[in-house]
């Protein structure tokens, strides 16, 4: 019965749409489409001719990313090695009095957790959300960094899930040189290629720590998501 | 050049000095001025209220009157926009469609006519006062008339132009809106006057007497220390 009602609603809506669109477009609006979509879709270059600048070299990309991160109150550390990142993290962990962290049990993340010497829960295996809630920080990989906007892209494939990058109050990202993408259109093109046909259930573009302006438009960080966002770029 | 002048209803009735100033300015520049007896209105009030048939009754007369005019000049951004931008829409699909487009193309708001069509920016005027400018919405957004009035004011001797922060914000007149929703209209006018007073100017000027009528109404009632004057009157001062 429910299915029948559903099919009816679906058919009705589609019929109404087709019927509505029988009256042709108002001339002015049609002109816009001719102007921009004659070749089917806008190119990366066309969109970038509109968006803010992203830089032409790695150094420029880095500099723009850093400026954006500073404006967003995200902490950005370009470092030469994982060890340098870990040294910085030790200082942060001490200053913030971390007792428990969340991360994954493989590769550089595992190395980081071990060298930090803190109790850790590993969310790349089954875990208890109440334990995750107690964590002071989460350390994860990312899919990409975007210079143009100062964003970090994460996914539920790379992070094996959704909660680790949003529940703990401090989110730390370990990123690598080739992950710094100049612009948002290029980042989307790369993601599309990477995940074509087999999307992670979540892809999130994170730009700065969690924030709100809902109270008298006063900026407050850490509304629900992480209050602090720290990015290490190993280059 | 033979200039046909269209004097909007409220200028005819309440601000004839605006029309007189314009005639004076054009004749001094050596042009011949024509002013048809009727119609007295461009039909905007009916159009804006949704009564297009009633608007057409007046608008048709306007079109007939200006059928053979070389150029039509209107001292109002809102009436100017009505004829230039909205007449083609009002008459779309009717027997007057072509005439509407033709008249529209020969129509100018007063300041943009002076600057863009006649190429005149200095009328030898003198107005030794502090002045702030109000951008009427139709003139600003329908006719893109931001620069010409400012260019003309910059050449008036001893005039100090101080821009108010709310220069581009609607004054709240909006035609029949001012009578239908007087509480909102007046509040908007209050905000505008407050911004004008902040500049320390002695006068608010504009290309639109309708806006100025609304602002003056508030200024008089509240006994504010500022006056209103149409830009044509400033430009005619020697």
């Amino acid at each position, binding site marked *: 019965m429910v299915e029948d*009602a*559903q099919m009816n609603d679906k058919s009705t809506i589609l019929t*109404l*749409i087709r019927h509505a669109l029988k009256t042709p*477009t*108002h001339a002015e*609006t049609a002109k816009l*489409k001719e102007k921009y*979509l004659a070749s089917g*879709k806008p190119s990366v270059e066309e969109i970038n001719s*509109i*968006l803010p600048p992203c830089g032409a070299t790695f150094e420029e990309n880095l500099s723009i990313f850093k400026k954006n991160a500073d404006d967003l109150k995200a902490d950005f550390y370009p470092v030469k090695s994982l060890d340098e990142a870990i040294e910085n993290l030790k200082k942060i962990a001490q200053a913030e009095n971390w007792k428990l962290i969340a991360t994954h049990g493989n590769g550089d993340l595992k190395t980081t957790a071990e060298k930090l010497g803190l109790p850790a829960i590993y969310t790349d295996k089954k875990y208890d959300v109440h334990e995750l*809630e107690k964590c002071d920080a989460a350390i994860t990989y990312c899919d990409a960094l975007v210079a143009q*906007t*100062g964003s970090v892209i994460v996914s*539920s494939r790379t992070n094996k*899930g*959704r*909660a680790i990058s*949003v*529940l703990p109050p401090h989110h730390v990202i370990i990123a690598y040189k080739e992950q710094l993408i100049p612009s*948002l*259109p290029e980042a989307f093109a790369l993601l599309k290629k990477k995940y074509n046909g087999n*999307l992670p*259930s979540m*892809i*999130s573009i994170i*730009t700065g720590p*969690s924030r709100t*302006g*809902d*109270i008298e*438009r*006063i900026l407050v960080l*850490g509304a*629900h998501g992480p209050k602090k966002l720290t990015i290490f770029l190993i280059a | 050049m033979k200039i046909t002048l269209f004097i909007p209803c409220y200028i005819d*009735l*309440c601000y*004839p000095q605006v029309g*007189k100033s314009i005639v004076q300015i054009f004749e001094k520049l050596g042009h011949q001025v024509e*002013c048809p007896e*009727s119609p*007295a209105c461009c039909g905007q009030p009916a159009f*804006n209220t*949704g*009564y297009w048939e*009633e608007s057409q*009754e*007046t608008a048709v007369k306007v079109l007939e009157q200006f059928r053979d005019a070389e150029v039509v000049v209107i001292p109002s951004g809102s009436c100017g926009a009505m004829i230039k931008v909205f007449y083609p829409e009002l008459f779309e699909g009717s027997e007057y469609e072509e005439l509407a487009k033709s008249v529209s193309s020969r129509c100018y708001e007063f300041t943009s006519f002076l600057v863009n069509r006649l190429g005149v920016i200095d009328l030898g005027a003198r107005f030794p006062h502090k002045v702030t400018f109000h951008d009427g*919405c139709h003139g600003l957004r329908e006719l893109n008339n931001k620069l010409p009035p400012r260019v003309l004011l910059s050449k008036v001797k001893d005039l100090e132009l101080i821009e108010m922060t709310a220069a581009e914000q*609607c004054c*709240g007149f*909006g*035609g029949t*809106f*001012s009578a239908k929703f007087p509480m*909102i209209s007046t509040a908007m006018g209050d*905000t505008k006057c407050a911004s004008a007073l902040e500049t320390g100017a002695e006068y608010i000027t504009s290309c639109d007497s309708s806006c100025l*009528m609304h602002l*003056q109404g508030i200024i008089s009632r509240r006994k504010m220390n500022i006056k209103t004057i149409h830009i044509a009157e400033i430009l005619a001062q020697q």
Partner: protein
Amino acid sequence: MNPLALEFKKRATASVADVNRRKLVLTALSKFEVKRNEKVAQFKNWQKGRELAAALKWDALENLAENLELLVNNLEKNGAKVHWAATGEEAKNIIASIAKEKNAKLIVKSKAMTAEEIHLNEALEKQGFEVVETDLGEFIVQLRNEPPYHIVFPAMHLTRYEISDLFSEKLKSQPTDKAEELTMIARRVLRDKYIRADIGITGGNFAVAELGAISITENEGNARLTAALPRVMITLIGIEKVVRRMEDLALFLPMLATAGAAQTISGYNTLYSGPRKSDEIDGPEEYHVVLLDNGRTELLADPVERDALRCIRCGACLNVCPIYKTIGGHAYGTTYCGPIGAVITPRMRGIEDWQHLSYASSLCGACTEICPVKIDLHHHLLKNRRIAGTKTPVWWQKTAFKIYAKISNSPTLWSLMTKFGRLGQKLHPLIKGTKLDPAYAWTKNRDLPPIAKQTFKEWWRMRK
């Protein structure tokens, strides 16, 4: 006069009188405008961006049926369940039956204007579910039992003192005048809810057809948590939100954030394509997407006003509208306020009852100027007025305009009217400002200019 129009006028009058509230709103929006202009200036070509955004949205709408079918196919391939709701009632039934089937008790919600539109919370609460708004602004107005004041900043009309009092009363928290402390109070309360919730309901900003995914924009992370922790996730989204390609978002996301919130891009922009995959350790086990019509196809049928469906709900038009700034969001008395609300409400909820919203505008055009997808907002208000004048003419007004047309077309009648007008003005002071005054709407708060001793036409005639 139509009762809804009367109520609107009452509320507008009350808003105008609330000078402190108006000052708060005006100050916030003035500061916002400065920041927004800065962010717009960062774009290499903002105007081109508006044109391309309009073209992309237009293309998506012109092929809406095909795009919706593509979207649904891809969502289902990704493991999501899709439901179609022709009306708000349908949508409420679908969501309620999912909640019932899952034996849900607690539902957390992130911001969804569509949910406000259909009064979803009310319906769910009536059926015994606890529904908690997680967006800070929505959380605050939910506690106050009010609708949102602005589509992006729901509590912008409140001071922190009012919010502190509210939290003290409802949450038994310590009073404070610091925005940060108030936010932390809400954060603590809501964390528990996210973890215990059975269902997370979200709205959606874009539905990407080629990907089969819903894009959700936010700054707080509350939608991220709503979509991460509960075992069932439901998205309610209008059918007009469809865009074709993932890459289109590279333009829309920065423009949405810049126009609506003076940010280069919002804090979290997330694509959800389905429930957790087999290689994902957490995330909802089920993902339901409810596609809502509720009058959108009617608007689509109007070849001129269908561009209003391009709306990306950024709130930019509200931020610049002098009427909105004066009367605030609640005065409109309906879900969508500001210029976009004034355009679509009479079309979607009936021109007979809601035309006053299209008349409550000075047609200044600031909204059209800022709209990132180039909706011809203020001209649509004119169109709505024309429909109102044709379908539901007010006879005395129509007659008055007819008479005025005759008078202004005839030099003789105009001349007569001028003379009578002068006489009338001499007698006017006797009734000026009183209820007998025909010009009371004007003279209550303003002075009328006198008719000149010699009108322009009289002067011109004498000259000749």
